[in-house]
């Protein structure tokens, strides 16, 4: 597991110029830029890994989230599949199913077609596993928080009282509704 993380980190460092999936005309994408990352999965093969990366992004398409961020979710699933043969098989089968639905290769389908495919498989185990990994792992990652503007714990910094708990650009309510802090 440690080795994978290091590999991912060094990949991120070396690929900082990659700004996103390469979008071809008609909304198709090609993920050759991710070969180095996908080749180094511990359990998933390159095609399965790249397809799962794209599914993760299609489920939660971000404008500010870099494509590399979505590796968080797939790396996590890759780690779990390394010790769970049936999980690994569900990924292989799941990708085969959406490839087939896309007429051969999910990654070559348009965004609109891909969304339609995901709608069809909504709620099946493959879909649910990938969605839940995004919810519970991707959005629980500090790098993602930094982009979205969530700051997390504040106890170690003394709370938000002195760190902008009242700095939103709306009118300050009258004191009767919102008194000053006791030490002011």
């Amino acid at each position, binding site marked *: 597991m440690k080795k994978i993380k290091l590999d991912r980190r060094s990949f991120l460092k070396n690929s900082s110029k990659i700004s996103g999936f390469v979008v071809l005309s008609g909304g198709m994408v090609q993920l050759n830029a991710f070969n180095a990352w996908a080749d180094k999965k511990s359990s998933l093969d390159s095609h399965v890994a790249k397809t799962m990366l794209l599914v993760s992004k299609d489920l939660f398409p971000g404008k*500010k989230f870099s494509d590399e961020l979505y590796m968080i979710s797939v790396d996590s699933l890759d780690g779990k599949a390394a010790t769970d043969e049936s999980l690994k098989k569900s990924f292989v089968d799941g990708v085969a199913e959406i490839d087939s639905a896309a007429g051969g290769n999910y990654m070559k389908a348009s965004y609109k077609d891909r969304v339609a495919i995901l709608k069809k498989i909504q709620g099946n185990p493959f879909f649910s596993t990938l969605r839940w990994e995004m919810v519970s792992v991707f959005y629980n990652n500090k790098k993602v*928080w930094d982009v*979205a503007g969530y700051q*997390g714990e504040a*106890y170690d910094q003394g*709370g*938000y009282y002195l760190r*902008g708990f009242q700095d939103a650009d709306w009118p300050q309510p009258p004191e009767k*509704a919102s008194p000053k802090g*006791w030490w002011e």
Partner: protein
Amino acid sequence: MAKKFDLNDDSVAVVIGSGAGGGTLSNELAQKGVKVVCLEAGKNYSPDDFVNDEWGAFLQTAWLDNRTTSGSWSIASNWPNLPSWIVKSVGGSTLHWAGASLRFQEHEFKVRTEYGDVAGANLLDWPVSLKEMEPYYDKAEYKIGVTRTHGIPGLPGNNNFKVFYDGAKKLGYKDVHTGRMGINSMPRDGRNACLQLGFCFQGCKSGAKWSAGYSEIPKAEQTGNFELRTQAHVIQITHNKSGKIDGVVYVDADGNQQKQKARIVAVAGNSIETPRLLLMSNSSMYPDGLSNSSGQVGKNYMRHLTGSVYALMDKPVNFHRGTTMAGIVTDESINDPRRGFVGGYELETLALGLPFMAGFLIPGVSGWGEKVSNALENYDHLAGMWIVGEDMPQEKNAVSLNTDVKDQNGMPVPNVHFDDHDNDIKMRKHAFGKGTDVYNAAGAVDVFETPPYPSTHNLGTCRMSEKPRDGVCDKNGKSHDIANLFISDGSQFTTGAAENPTLTIVSLAIRQAEHIAKEMSKGTI
């Protein structure tokens, strides 16, 4: 100092649960010289143990024993094994509560009279009135240190409140402020003032929020009349040949069964575990479970209307900064049937961190795609509020034993069945509309109407009633059937009112302690 009682000591009062009801009752009884053994299923966590991390805290303290669900409520499809979001720890769900401390209104104690006969609803007047409850509300507010009572100032409003206030005032709402909160706005009772940490739900690390675990239990221990046993999960309440309660059987931390004798037993395991325990304690004398001659044990399960409105605003809000729920509009909590429903609701500010927003904004398998993703990516632009409304008690909404599924102790798990009443659906629709209007007035660019979370307000499954045929316990929480058995948590609620329940649970516990101590000294129990 902490005391140790013998398992065969049949002079003790056994309190099951250490939360708002059980923790308060334990301390109040111990202060009056009653010997108390409090059995808590969870472990003991102090503020130093609390983690300001949503999933981390959830896995640390949530009640995750297996449960099942049925019915048409969205929880059954979105969270089929998590009907409630409550806590398994010393202090119970006061570890998780957000602190909103509102008295019920006069009419909410007599809804059968006020609302009339609502089809499909099992409405009943409480056997107590607001007037009778007022002195106990007063004591509870003083104990908790509720802001805007007893000269305690309100909390300063955070970013989420600024947006909420702006929109609510533009809409014409009159009573809008930072709420009556069980969170210290200034140091009090050995606890800090609020540091605006933003993790009220995860256990307050600064200790500013009242919690039975560190506010009541240590005081009980100081009396020398009190013993807390943690990881003591009660699986049966036992009785003697005459039908009187004589003890409880619990599973200890090592998985061994122990029997503690008792003079009286008070059950405060939250509205799912309390009826489950009465049902699991059935015997040849009580074939339908304890205190169930009315057939109402487990019935009339209420969970408040609930729902949330989240809005993506045109400017950054940073609503995660500061108290989770210090903001309220009370204008809609009146009973005005012209709105198309009986009863009312409160609007209260609410913020979740990004991890929980991802899980809850649009829960379940349909929670994906551009709309939800855009909101999460712009988390710092979100504002949010929670709807707390009175839901209708219905006999079919019930906690029952699911004998097909067993828990870690081999006992049948509780099944929680719930269908929204038509009145609930109409009220939620109205509240969603008003919440949306508030945020549109304050500059929203997108609005989400989020369905209920797993229930935090679990109520009514052993309700109090004037007549034994209508409910499980009397106005003191005493079982109609068994003189030395008491219900001491939100299960007692005859109806739910529009207000968050903790203050009323604490008030009832203070009142019940008075009653129990008096009756014990008279020798009647």
